[in-house]
């Protein structure tokens, strides 16, 4: 495993969590505005 890989993995996971999480949050708000 190349050095610094955990930092990269953490960054990619956090980005996905934030963007997918916000999209889901918006979807739920559109059901009950």
């Amino acid at each position, binding site marked *: 495993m190349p050095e*610094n*890989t955990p*930092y990269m993995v953490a960054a*990619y996971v956090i980005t996905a969590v*934030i963007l997918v999480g916000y999209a889901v949050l*918006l*979807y739920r708000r559109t059901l009950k*505005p």
Partner: protein
Amino acid sequence: MRLLKTGRWITIVGLALLAAVYVRALAFTPLERFQGAAQKIYYIHVPSAVCAMLAMGLVGVAGILYLLLKDPRFDRFGEASAEVGVAFSLVMLTTGPLWAKPIWGTWWTWDARLTLTLFLFLLFLGYLLLRGAVTEPGLRARYSAVLGICGLVLLPFIHLSVYLFRTLHPEPIVLKPSAPSLPSEMLVTLLFSFLVFTILYVGLVTQRYAVSLLREQADPHA
């Protein structure tokens, strides 16, 4: 509502393309010789930062247009863009320290670029808090427009901070007057990521705008 459906579809396409960005960046883009895997954070950090600045820029432009034309659509758009800007700012402010730690040896430093981007995030939060605190719609729109314009004024300082002040943050590699100083494989990945983040911005703002519209239809005095 048609606008809501359009926003949902654009967001779904954007999220699917985000997965493609991950595959392209992680499997088909070469490792940088000195920074190793940490450099790949670049492909999400820079587009998220640009989208956060785009979001604030458009909040400011919408603010100017609202003050000139008094059209509530601009106020609604400003609110939507600010909220989506919070999400992109969060990505920028979390991926930045994760890149800085292995390369600079520190998670954070209070230099001009980093501090100004933190201001940008706080300005987004302040904008949304202001909207929550003022109940009278006309007053809320006017105050928000002024704060949005203040955010717009901040943007050139953020972009130029790496030239104006001594900072650990590197100067732009692509968004500069001369040609991008990046190997073509990395540049293609970055441009693809720019495109996907922009699609996500459009999809999320469209959905958020539709939420505001639905709320106003449910309670016209809110």
